[in-house]
């Protein structure tokens, strides 16, 4: 139904429907608002005003009643009376005015208002009577009168006023409920209408969108397939609108592309026998295809000439960016240069092949020589191996003797230490001897003292002997025997003296001898000190000697291990030389094969020269 309508017409129709609906909703809402306003006005004019007036009336009646009590109580005071009467008059006027207002607005029974007015009119003469009694000074009578008539009257008025007030309050409540129900109905109606309008707008939007999007989606899918290069898509539409036109144009375009694709396929398969006719003067693809075919035909012709061996062909590239043209030109140029170089290289190769042949012959003869040399080397290695064994044996002997030397040096060191100990002992004994000799010297000193005593004794004996001789001479003949004895004593004394002289001489000799002995022991002690020092030096020398021998022993041990390793190494060398011997035999064989290969190479080169000569270069 909508298919043949233009998109613009569809949009206008939809929006018009929605706007009409909105106007309808607005009208209904406005009408309800006006009804609400009327209700509010009535509410204000009637129950509110009547209630306020009746309440004022009630208050003023209370005031009049109170003032009357004042009149009855304080009627003796004229000023109080005047004030009270003035208040009563004021209140009475206000009561009548308000009653008139209430009667005008009152919606209920207006007779109630008239009853209140009548009662007020009845109260007035009662009050005047009471005032007259007061003025006459009959206060008690006035009070009794007021009590009898006024109280009853005022309570009647009050009950009437109360009835009016109750009626007005009920009326106000009724108005309130009416207003609330009206408001609720208005809200419900407005809500329903808004929902309906929204649903309608949504339905219209859906229908319009659907009618536009269906064909558009078809066109987009076709365009996507075209973008992926799929030209098998069939596009067409019977519709009259804008999308139908778009789809028909796309169908034409696809047909054109399909034709062009077929041409490109033929070119890709190498079929250049086709005529490309552009659709119009501005058909870029068609013109480009035509030029491409022409260019390819030119290239194919040039390639044919090159294939025939004519390398003199020169190709001009179609433009600066003609990669294929440049490549082709470069290829033909490079082919020319390559052929030239190959020709030169083949010449050089011919000479080299001849040289290789002679060299290979020399190589074969030198391989034979190498084989004989390797045999000689093998014999030499065997000899060196034997020499190494001998060296190992000798170095082992040297190591053993060095170990013995270390032991000997240690013994020597021990001996030197013992000698030093002995020297120390000698030194101590020397000291002992010197001390003993000095002791002896001291004892010979004692002997000298004793000898001095003996000498003294001998002197005294001598003197005694002389005295005895004197006494004997005095005795005369009787003293002769005694004189002989005295003479003997004298002789003994003389001998004693001589003996002491001898002893003194001997003591002198002993003294000299002891001095010499002490000196000799001192020299001996010094000699022992020297000996100690020299023994120490000798010990140090022996220790160093031992260290040196130990080092050389270690070195010899290393030599032993080294020579063993050397022997192993010589064995390996012998094996290696054996291998070399075999390898040189193989070398000989290989050089003969190389000779044959070189001959083949020479023949191949001859063929290559013939092939190269087929290409013309200029």
């Amino acid at each position, binding site marked *: 139904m909508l298919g043949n309508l233009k998109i613009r017409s569809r949009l206008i129709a939809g929006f018009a429907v929605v706007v009409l609906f909105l106007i309808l909703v607005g009208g209904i809402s406005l009408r309800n608002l006006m009804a609400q306003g009327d209700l509010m006005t009535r509410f204000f004019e009637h129950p509110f005003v009547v209630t306020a007036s009746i309440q004022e009336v009630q208050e003023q009646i209370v005031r009049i009643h109170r003032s009357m009590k004042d009149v009855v109580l304080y009627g003796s005071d004229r000023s109080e009376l005047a004030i009270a009467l003035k208040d009563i008059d004021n209140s009475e006027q206000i009561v009548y005015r308000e009653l008139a207002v209430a009667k005008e607005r009152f919606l209920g029974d207006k007779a109630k208002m008239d009853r209140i007015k009548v009662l007020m009119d009845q109260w007035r003469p009662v009050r005047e009577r009471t005032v007259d009694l007061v003025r006459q000074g009959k206060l008690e009578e006035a009070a009794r009168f007021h009590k009898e008539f006024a109280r009853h009257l005022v309570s009647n008025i009050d009950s009437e006023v109360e009835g009016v007030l109750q009626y007005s309050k009920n009326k106000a409540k009724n108005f309130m409920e009416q207003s609330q129900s009206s408001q609720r109905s208005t809200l419900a109606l407005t809500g329903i209408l808004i929902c309906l309008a929204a649903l309608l707008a949504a339905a219209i939007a859906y229908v319009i969108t659907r009618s536009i999007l269906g064909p558009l989606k078809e066109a987009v899918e076709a365009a996507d397939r075209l973008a992926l290069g799929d030209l098998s898509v069939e596009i067409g539409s019977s519709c009259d609108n804008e999308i139908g036109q778009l789809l028909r144009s796309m169908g034409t375009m696809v047909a054109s592309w399909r034709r062009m694709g077929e041409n490109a396929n033929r070119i890709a398969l190498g079929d250049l026998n086709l005529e490309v006719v552009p659709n119009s003067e501005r058909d870029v693809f068609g013109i480009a295809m035509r030029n491409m075919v022409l260019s390819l035909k030119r290239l194919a012709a040039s390639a044919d000439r090159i294939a025939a061996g004519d390398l003199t062909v020169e190709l001009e590239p179609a433009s600066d960016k003609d990669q294929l043209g440049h490549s082709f030109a470069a290829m033909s140029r490079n082919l020319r240069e390559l052929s030239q170089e190959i020709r030169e290289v083949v010449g050089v190769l011919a000479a080299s092949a001849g040289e290789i042949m002679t060299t290979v012959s020399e190589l074969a003869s030198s391989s034979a020589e190498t084989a004989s040399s390797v045999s000689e080397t093998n014999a030499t290695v065997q000899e060196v191996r034997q020499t190494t064994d001998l060296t190992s044996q000798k170095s082992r002997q040297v190591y053993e003797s060095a170990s013995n030397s270390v032991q000997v040096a240690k013994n020597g060191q021990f001996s030197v230490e013992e000698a030093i100990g002995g020297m120390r002992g000698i030194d101590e004994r020397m000291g002992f001897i010197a001390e003993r000799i000095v002791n002896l010297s001291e004892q010979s000193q004692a002997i000298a003292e004793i000898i001095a005593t003996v000498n003294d004794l001998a002197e005294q004996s001598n*003197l005694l002997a002389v005295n005895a001789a004197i006494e004997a*001479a005095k005795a005369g003949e009787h003293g002769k025997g005694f004189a002989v004895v005295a*003479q003997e004593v004298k002789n003994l004394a003389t001998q004693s003296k001589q003996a002491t002289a001898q002893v003194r001489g001997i003591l002198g000799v*002993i003294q000299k*001898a002891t001095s010499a002995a002490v000196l000799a022991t001192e020299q001996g002690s010094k000699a022992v000190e020297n000996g100690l020092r020299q023994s120490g030096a000798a010990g140090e020398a022996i220790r160093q000697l031992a260290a040196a021998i130990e080092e050389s022993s270690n070195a010899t041990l290393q030599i032993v291990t080294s020579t063993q390793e050397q022997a192993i190494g010589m064995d390996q060398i012998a094996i290696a030389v054996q291998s070399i011997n075999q390898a040189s035999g193989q070398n000989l064989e290989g050089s003969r094969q190389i000779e044959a290969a070189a001959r083949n190479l020479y023949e191949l080169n001859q063929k290559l020269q013939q092939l190269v000569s087929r290409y013309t270069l200029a």
Partner: protein
Amino acid sequence: MASGNPQQPGQPLDWPALLERQRLLACELSGQEDPGEVQGVLEARAAELAVPPPEPRSGRYLDCLEFVLSGERYALELRYLIQTLPLTDFTPLFCTPPFVLGLTILRGRIISIIDLRRFFELPLVGLADLNRVMVVGNGAMEVGILADSIVGVGSVPVAELQPAPAAFTGLREEFLSGVTAERLAVLDLGKILADRRIVVHEEVG
């Protein structure tokens, strides 16, 4: 003894010989004498004692005590001699002639000591021992005469005495009895003791 067999340096010491010598010396010092040596000593003594006694003296002899003074031998008669004693202690005496050496005490008696060298006015040559005193007296007085050493008692034949030689002059010649053939000067002690010059009598104001 070390001096008996000096050890030559460089030669090995003959220890056994040395020890033997030491052993012998020890034996000797401990009294175990060598029997042969003892025999020799005994024989020597016997030979000495076997000298025949001197011939009996004839003529008149003077028993004299021989002593040495300033290296010359003198003698004095034994009859004047009381005693000899060593000069141990003496007290110098002032205001006396030079020949009086001083005083000493002998058994409670005070004795003056006279140096004959000064008395004879001999030259004082060389060192002298002068440690012997011969106490002489003639009954009247006692005096000590200094001597270098006392040789001993001997007898001098009076006949052999000769007059003093020319070398003895002055007081020495005056107090000399005579000189023997062995140049032993015999002093006339009686004359000396009797001489007034030996008596000291001086007063000092």
